[in-house]
């Protein structure tokens, strides 16, 4: 071993250690920010390690430097700008986009190695030299392409640029996807047999497979898909690691792959969906209207903002249940104004956070933190559920399925078994909602029919603004 090899070895080892510590640190609120920076540092360190290794061994041509600099500047610049500009509500889409680009990167590396075999390099850089090389290139292309197109479709659907086409809800889609999958497999074996041109077939059909699998999935399940695709991008990175013979890539890719799987599992559990039904079941609303019927509401009580304000003023303990609707209305800041007033009046306020509130675990926490809500007031479902019977008022804002008592009481409901917030145990429940439309699952919410529930119809932001006005008139929060 010569010096550059030893230096690279040490740096790689250090980078892996720091990346692992970074991921570990991300699991605690206190250390999370530093941990993220640590991981970023480890990534830069790994670049320094690689470049210094090549400088010390083969050297780096001027031409290579030029292309390195061009690629780095453009990629980093766009990444940084997007990261600074994007609103917090669009987090799932943003992660999907970044993720897709990671997959694209792995795809391009494998493609580059496959099309332009490099002569005279000491490492296993000659295409088709060994079976392993062929397999890892194929896997890298396959997973990379699925990650890319899948993530882009996921992003487009979350942004509302793409809707779910009707045929994707029929059985036809399974047939189409099986055709794509079989075609990928054929291209894969053809490649291994030495037919280089089938690489394009592999690129095309695996891209189509990514689209075909993601397109039928409904908006509510999208975060699960993004999380799964995140896992794939890790696998794609690990596969690229086999292609260029880098342990560091393999370790980091494997860690991300495992992380994505765990997260996917957690999200599925929170929504009471199995991964299989998310991936192959189509959108939930299509199933539920067919199976259990939506049913009619019989006992809806609606009330004015004024009544709501009066009840709030008299309360001792208030629990807020925020949902994605709140985020869409960009009303988290207005909500904070309301709760500040209540707190100043000595009313105890906590926020009940369902594990999948805001479409992605932890998303709602981020949105509320943005509005300066103290971290201590955010209570997780299991912590807050026993508190509901002792609560005077519950405000449900833009949440629906996560407060549906059907999940506990009605074994025929598609929601049955999903963990929900027991808001109906509270003395009074106000549901602020634009209309009587169903939640993402498309299922009737029994909560709305209960005698202690009142509906306040209107846009979340407008209702909260009116509420601030009413509370002011009552003198709440003036002292």
């Amino acid at each position, binding site marked *: 071993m010569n010096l550059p090899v030893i230096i690279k070895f040490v740096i790689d080892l250090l980078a892996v250690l720091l990346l692992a510590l970074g991921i*570990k640190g991300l699991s605690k609120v206190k250390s999370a920010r530093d941990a993220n920076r640590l991981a970023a540092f480890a990534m830069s360190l790994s670049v320094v390690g690689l470049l210094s290794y090549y400088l010390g061994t083969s050297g780096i041509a001027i031409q290579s430097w030029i292309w390195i600099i061009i690629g780095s500047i453009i990629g980093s610049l766009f990444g940084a700008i997007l990261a600074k500009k994007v609103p917090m509500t669009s987090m799932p889409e943003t992660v999907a986009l970044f993720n897709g680009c990671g997959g694209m990167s792995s795809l391009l590396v494998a493609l580059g190695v496959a099309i332009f075999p490099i002569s005279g390099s000491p490492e296993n850089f000659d295409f088709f030299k060994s079976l392993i090389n062929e397999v890892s290139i194929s896997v890298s292309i396959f997973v990379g392409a699925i990650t890319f197109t899948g993530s882009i479709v996921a992003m487009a659907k979350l942004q509302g640029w793409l809707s779910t086409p009707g045929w994707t809800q029929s059985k036809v889609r399974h047939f189409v996807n099986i055709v794509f999958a079989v075609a990928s497999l054929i291209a894969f074996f053809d490649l291994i047999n030495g037919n280089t041109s089938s690489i394009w077939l592999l690129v095309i059909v695996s891209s189509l497979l990514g689209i075909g699998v993601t397109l039928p999935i409904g908006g509510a399940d999208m975060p699960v898909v993004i999380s799964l695709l995140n896992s794939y991008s890790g696998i794609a990175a690990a596969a690229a690691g086999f292609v260029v013979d880098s342990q560091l890539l393999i370790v980091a890719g494997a860690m991300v792959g495992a992380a994505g799987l765990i997260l996917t599992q957690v999200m599925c559990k929170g929504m009471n969906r199995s991964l299989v039904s998310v991936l192959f079941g189509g959108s939930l609303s299509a199933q539920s209207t067919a199976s259990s019927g939506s049913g009619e509401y019989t006992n809806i009580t609606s009330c004015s903002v004024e009544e709501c304000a009066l009840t709030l003023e008299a309360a001792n303990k208030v629990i807020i249940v925020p949902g994605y609707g709140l985020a869409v209305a960009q009303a988290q800041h207005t909500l904070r104004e309301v709760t500040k007033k209540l707190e100043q009046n000595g009313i105890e306020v906590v926020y009940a956070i369902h594990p999948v509130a805001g479409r992605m675990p932890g998303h709602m926490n981020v949105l509320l933190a943005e509005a300066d809500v103290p971290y201590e007031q955010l209570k997780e479902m299991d912590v807050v559920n026993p508190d509901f019977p002792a609560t005077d008022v519950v405000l449900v804002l833009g949440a629906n399925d996560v407060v549906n008592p059907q999940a506990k009481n009605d074994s025929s409901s598609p929601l049955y078994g999903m963990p929900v917030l027991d808001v109906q145990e509270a003395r009074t429940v106000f549901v602020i909602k634009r209309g009587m439309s169903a939640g993402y699952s498309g299922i009737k919410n029994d909560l709305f029919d209960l005698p202690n529930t009142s509906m306040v119809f209107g846009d979340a932001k407008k209702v909260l603004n009116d509420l601030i006005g009413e509370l002011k008139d009552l003198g709440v929060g003036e002292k």
Partner: protein
Amino acid sequence: MSFISLLWVLLLGSLLGLELIGKVPPTLHTPLMSGANAISGITMLAALTLIVKADGNVPLLIIGSVSLGFALFNVVGGFFVTDRMLAMFSRKPLNKK
């Protein structure tokens, strides 16, 4: 590195990932996902390798450079956006202006 030892690396890396991530509170799942996603941009190293070894082959240099761009978009964007999210958590509770 032989293929077998690379497989060992893959296995141990996966186990490490499972172990590290098994204990994260739901609150941090979005930042974690975004942070882990940034790390998956480690393919930038593969792109760099490609460019360095291109040996004057312009199409390969271009592919490598585009790949590097995509990877760094993922890495830089991912870390920045994670930092933005986490900055909100680290705000002191009840510090009103």
